[in-house]
């Protein structure tokens, strides 16, 4: 998941509306153990994971201030009683009374301050550190290193000894009221609070992080009785004293599948309750009438694009950029990588996202080899030069972009060459504008708003974004939208920004993903959160029911 800072204007409007009340859980949690696949977890202490696999455990073992509704994607109050602000800068959060951690410690304002300060403290080097950047006092916890001449080793920057450990922007007004001061008004603040970075932390956990890493002390409906193991997974059972809506299942076992392995075979033998078929097995899964009834198919807002290097001389001609886009047979490519893995995109924001599905790309995202050939012939592409397509080598990227290259070659006769790079190298090179051809560009949303597909990817001007896209008009429109008063207004303005983007065509939209999960016969009420579902097969553990 990418950075969620920046203005998620007006999302807060809905955040204070819902209140998760304790009505009608229909079991008392004896419904059997749910078997779930999981990838490699980085950490189980809030703020330490920063990836989908850690988050899917943490969000069930912990209760945050808000919880993301699976149907709407909106943040609804969970531990928070109320989140209010007069000026969008000073936020007052009241916490429900009587809540405790698994070990009996109270879940109070201090518990949140404890957790947030730990995440923000630079020497802890936590991956979600930047989530705290909007809070006042973050800067003091993340100071510039000492001047270079004072370092003992010229390559190792040193910090001053007196880095504070607490952010000045956090105050516990009383046990159940937390006041948060931000450095500037930020409407989207409450929507971030369902992220693991903002979860509470028990004192016992802070005192012995190692033990807490293995056996998290949460405040959520599930708790670990035995330590979780990164290699072999672990089982969390429902917590009898949970105050909120009791899950129907008795617990969950996470079975670990690391890269190169997948759960499908184990799903077929019934050892795993939910799984995404591999590209190869999808077709046989779909043709199995029995499985068809236990299929969840829904749009996945993750998108794949072919980024274009606007900083490179060869790609200055917009006709060439259009030609490349029209040369790609998106349906054909999808046929290669596995049927039903995506829906062709006709814009830069997918339909499943608020404000998306505008079709801003229009005819240029339609497969039209003749027109592509005409445009390409008219462009001044150097004779005999191959198109170099850059991809990082993880997952099946190489296959996907090979199919894209094949399609371009077939349509306009332009030969291609795949340049594969290791992920970290690739990121660095891409950021430094070092790629001299189209490159893989994927994006998964942080929250449900079209802004998240526009500002973080193409904003900031020539140097800041990977494409070298620069448009004053665009930046002005984004700024205007960010300052909008209401959500509707903001969404409409962001849509206008998308249209401006289309005029420059900094990337070729390819497709948006599709979630295709299958579940076993014993599973009832399978609900998948479209935005926060982990890729290998995931569902809402708080809602699912099991029949034996």
């Amino acid at each position, binding site marked *: 998941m990418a950075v969620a800072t920046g203005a998620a204007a007006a999302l807060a409007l809905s955040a204070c509306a819902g209140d998760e009340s304790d009505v009608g859980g229909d079991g008392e949690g004896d419904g059997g153990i749910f078997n779930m696949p999981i990838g490699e977890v980085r950490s189980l202490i809030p703020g330490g994971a920063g990836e989908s696999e850690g988050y899917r455990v943490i969000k069930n073992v912990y209760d945050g201030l808000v919880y993301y509704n699976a149907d709407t994607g909106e943040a609804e109050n969970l531990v928070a009683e109320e989140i209010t602000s007069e000026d969008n800068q000073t936020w007052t959060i009241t916490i429900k009374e009587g809540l405790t951690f698994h070990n009996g410690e109270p879940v109070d304002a201090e518990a949140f301050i404890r957790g947030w300060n730990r995440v923000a403290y630079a020497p802890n080097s936590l991956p979600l550190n930047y989530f705290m950047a909007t809070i006042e006092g973050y800067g003091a916890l993340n100071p510039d290193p000492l001047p270079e001449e004072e370092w003992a080793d010229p390559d190792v920057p040193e910090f001053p000894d007196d880095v504070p450990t607490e952010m000045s922007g956090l105050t516990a007004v009383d046990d159940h009221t937390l006041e948060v001061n931000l450095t500037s008004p930020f409407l989207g603040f409450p929507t971030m609070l369902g992220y693991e970075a903002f979860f509470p932390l028990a004192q016992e956990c802070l005192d012995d992080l190692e033990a807490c890493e293995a056996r998290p002390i949460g405040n959520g409906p599930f708790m670990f009785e035995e330590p979780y193991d990164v290699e072999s997974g672990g089982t969390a059972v429902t917590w009898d004293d949970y105050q909120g809506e009791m899950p129907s299942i008795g617990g969950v076992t996470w079975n670990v599948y690391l890269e190169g392995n997948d759960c499908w075979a184990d799903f077929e033998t019934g050892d795993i309750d939910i799984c995404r078929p591999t590209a190869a097995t999808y077709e046989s899964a779909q043709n199995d009438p029995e499985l068809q009834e236990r299929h969840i198919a829904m749009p996945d807002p993750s998108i794949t694009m072919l980024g274009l290097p606007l900083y490179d001389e060869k790609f200055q001609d917009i006709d060439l950029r259009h030609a490349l886009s029209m040369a790609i047979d998106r349906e054909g490519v999808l046929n290669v990588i596995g049927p039903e893995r995506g829906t062709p995109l006709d814009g830069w924001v997918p339909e499943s996202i608020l404000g998306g599905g505008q079709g801003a790309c229009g005819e240029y995202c339609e497969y039209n080899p003749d027109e592509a050939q005409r445009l390409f012939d008219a462009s001044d592409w150097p004779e005999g030069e191959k198109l170099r397509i850059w991809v990082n080598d993880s997952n099946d990227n190489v296959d996907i972009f090979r199919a894209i290259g094949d399609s371009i*070659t077939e349509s306009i006769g332009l030969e291609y060459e*795949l340049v594969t790079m290791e992920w970290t190298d690739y990121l660095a090179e891409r950021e430094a504008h070092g790629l001299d051809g189209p490159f893989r560009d994927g994006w998964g949303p942080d929250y449900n708003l079209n802004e998240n597909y526009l500002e973080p990817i193409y904003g900031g001007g020539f140097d800041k974004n990977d494409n070298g896209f620069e448009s004053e008009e665009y930046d002005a429109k984004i700024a205007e939208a960010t300052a909008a008063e209401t959500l509707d207004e903001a969404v409409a303005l962001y849509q206008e920004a998308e249209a401006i983007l289309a005029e420059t065509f900094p990337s070729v939209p390819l497709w948006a993903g599709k979630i295709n999960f299958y579940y076993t016969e014993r599973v009832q009420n399978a609900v998948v959160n479209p935005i926060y579902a982990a890729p290998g097969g995931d569902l809402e553990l708080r809602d699912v029911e099991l029949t034996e």
Partner: protein
Amino acid sequence: MSELTAPKPEPDTAQSSLWKDAFRTMRRRPDVIIASLIMLFVFTMAAFPTLFTDKSPTRCIGSDARERPDTWFTGEHPLGTDQFGCDFAATLVHGTRPTITLALSVMIVAVLIGMVTGILAGYYGGVIDAIISRAVDVFIVVPLMLGAILLLSLFRGRGAPDNLFETVAPPAIALAIFGWMEFTRYTRAATIETKNLDYVTAARCLGAKDRRIMFKHILPNAIIPVTAVIPTTLGSIIVAESALAVLGIGVQPPATSWGVLLSNGTQWAAGGYIYLFGIPLLLLILTVFSFATFGDALRDALDPKLR
């Protein structure tokens, strides 16, 4: 090899009769003949792919992907199309050349390194022997696959290979670096055995130069055990290449080799496209099996003690 101990021998005739004997024995074995035919078929495919297919393996149409070979050996796509919509027969035939080139080049490099170090170590002994033997030990304790994985992952180049050499070079170098020790051992043993034979001692007394002794007298003997393991080694290199491909660090797509085909094919086999896995697998097994059978027979023929 007692006939070699004659005081004033004609090593060349003795050698050639050994080879001739071996050839004669092998010619009479039906399994060897079948194996040779398969090897010939594979080598022809590697050398002249266009004899077998007129399709281009790089023309791939996504919407035609995974057409099953319903027509079998005839029609538009004799073996269907692969996952990218390329003609599968063409892919298979054109994938043979990298596979065979890789196997041959690894083998040649490994044999050269092995024979040179083995003869040096065996002939001079002392410090040179100690150094070379230590080097052999060092490389032996890092198993071939692990060593190759280490090298290939650490120094993975970026960029697609342009020609056959660039395609094959990285896995070939990695496999050769961890594959020469066996040949050193065999050569060293044979050298030590030979150098104490009377006729070699005699030659040395008569003032023959070291280099002449090594080439004229020792090499012909040392080459026997080495030759005997070459076919089997070729087979195991092909297997190692496919293992590297399955791990994603061998020959890099879109270049193809049998390993790449197998590694792509396995996942689709589970989805019901068994031909994508089965056909390259059959080809690979047949080839490796013929190399092994041939090698087995060759070893028997060259080393009468084991018969």
